């Protein structure tokens, strides 16, 4: 397999999974501020440190 084939195959699989995941949800996102700093809203995302 060439590197280009590997890249193309990877992105086909990866984007396919993303599309599949996205298609399972139709709810609108309660959109967070574009930049959280200074917004008055606390961070709430998941992180490796345990939150």
């Amino acid at each position, binding site marked *: 397999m060439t590197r280009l084939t590997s890249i193309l195959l*990877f992105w086909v699989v990866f984007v396919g999974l993303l599309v599949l995941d996205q298609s*399972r949800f139709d709810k609108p996102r309660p959109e967070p501020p574009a*930049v959280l700093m200074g917004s008055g809203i606390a961070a709430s995302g*998941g*992180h490796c440190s345990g*939150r």
Partner: protein
Amino acid sequence: MSVSQSSRLGIVFLAIAGVVTITFLAGVQAGLLVLIGIGFGLALQGFGFGFTGGWRRMIQARDPSGMLAQMALMVVASALALPLLAAFPEELVGAVAPISWSLIIGAFVFGIAMQLADGCGSGSLNKAGAGNIYSWAVMPSFIFGSFVGASHQPAWLSLGGPLDALAPDPSLGFSVNLLPAFGSTGAILVNVLICVMVGLVFFKMRAAATAHSGTPGSASGLASTVWNMPWLKAAAVIGILYAIHLAVAGQPWGIVYGLGLWGAKIAAGLGVNLADDAFWGVAPHAARLTEPVLWDITSLTNIGLLFGTMAASRWTNPDSAKNFLSARQWVIGLAAGLVLGYSARLAFGCNIGGFLGGVASASLHGWVWFAMAFLGSIFGVALRKRLGMG
């Protein structure tokens, strides 16, 4: 127009289309995080910056240049991020974790596995994005290991830590956050001091190796080499992007949480019931399984990073050599990826979430992570030799 130019235009078009699509689907913050992720990928791949190779060069050849670039990254990220964390304590959250047995064991094992997987968290994504064939073995098991490791993390945390008796509340574990104790300036100075000390130790090790081999070399010569190499520029760029990420997302850059989430989503999609899972079945992680991946912060930067490394690799080096994995490489890659993912969740993250995130949040667990993972890498490098991996 040459083929190369049209390829490059295609990459730029795909990047714009991807960012616009994700912004449309998940909002402006999501689009910004993908852009930042692309920046991380371009910097890592474009400058050839990595943790695994730098550590291996230090261990095998006593070449400290990669280590010094990593210390430079710690200084830049700390100097930019700690004042932000101090100024916006209500909105921005650092990566602070206890010094637990799970951290000590997890980081040590991660250090071994990263040498066998030939990449840490960012390095494995970097290689996958750039089309490295070995990633086909490492990445799927890395994702599965992150998912299972997160699931087992609460059990590992229940073991406590060696210093819990010193904690005000031993049930929460012993964590040290230098930011409230010393303020941002004091915490930055402590980190700079540790980085200088680590750098000096590696310089001394190089000097001792040089004296032993009789090869002439000088500290000033090495300093000149380090200063001129692209890794140091990468350290500056990644450090700046790290601070921008913190401002946009409200939390430090992380990688492995997103991979574990992808694993959990795949498992749930295959019918695995995670409702009673100790990690994925409880808030806030359970809620993330009911949302699209594009709403998750670490997933967004991971997607950007993958694209950025692909773009950088195709931009400069569109090689088309054929590569195949031997059965032995498949086995080693699958096993190493599995252990890499599992141990990363025990250790509160990989080189990015655990080491960089911890240090740039002034949490002592970041330096403990580094010490244990580097120790593990010494064993990992020896194991590579025994397995014929060089």
